[in-house]
């Protein structure tokens, strides 16, 4: 098991793992609607599938929030 950080919280995962895999692993409600930062840099959506995670990576999931009414 290896450790990465998802939204500031440590998570144990098994490599190889792509960003898409991590999204699935975390049961993100609407996988197409999440914005992803990897180690402080935004990832392009088309790269989710091919980006392999490694030990110590820090991932932030950012979700759309459209309300205000």
């Amino acid at each position: 098991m290896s450790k990465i950080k998802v939204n500031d919280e440590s998570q144990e995962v098994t490599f190889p793992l792509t960003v898409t895999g991590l999204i699935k692993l975390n049961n993100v409600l609407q996988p197409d609607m999440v914005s992803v930062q990897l180690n402080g840099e935004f990832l392009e959506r088309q790269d989710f599938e091919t980006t392999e995670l490694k030990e110590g990576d820090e991932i932030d999931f950012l979700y759309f929030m459209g309300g205000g009414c």
Partner: protein
Amino acid sequence: MDFTGEQIERYSRHILLQDIGVEGQEKILNGKVLVIGAGGLGAPILLYLAAAGVGTLGVIDGDVVDLSNLQRQVIHFTPDVGKPKVESAKEKINQINPDVKVVTYHEFFTAENAFDIIQDYDFIVDGTDNFPVKFLINDACVLAGKPFSHGGILRFDGQTLTHLPGTACYRCAFHSPPPPNAVPTCSQAGVLGAIAGMLGTIQAAEVLKYLTGAGDLLTNRLLTFNAKTMNFRTVNLKPNKKCPVCGEHPTITELVESEQAVCELKSK
């Protein structure tokens, strides 16, 4: 600027603050702030900015008060149902603080009127309820070099980001609006009323910090919170080189409204 005795009394708790003081309060009194949307977020934002004595408050909203609004839009009262929201808001602001000059726009914020309206203001606050307008506000402010506060709430969650020219914008993080109905808005999914107050007051605090120069703004940081866990967290953001509006090779150079229909504006 000379304070009247009444003003000294009214703003004494600001003047006492070392980071605000007389000078800071003067800046607030000279400030011009536009609040887009007089709903869940707009209500607390307007109330606190009015109380603080922001010199000019612009309010833009094309809607009228609906009974379902009153669960969270604390600037509107039961007798206001049916009244244009901007009118209802203006009445309350005048009652709270006659120092404040209120400019109302009973219309929606669109690609056509955006630049004309924002040019008169020092700071813009997003209190809207749908993605196309949120992105429109972002683009207009980035292109015009205006600072603004983004805010969004849904169910039990809220998020906000402050943008100054050169810092990460909303599009840096959320490239473009989701397809219609892909992500629910609060009119579809619901929202805990108090969340609007929580996020709106954070946005109001950002405005006051910006006007007075006190503290560190939420620039290059997205604040998110969840009221169920009451966990607050800030995610550091960097300006995104590939951002379509503020990146190195911008593709958005003028305002276009998203093609999708504004999501159920009338659905209450």
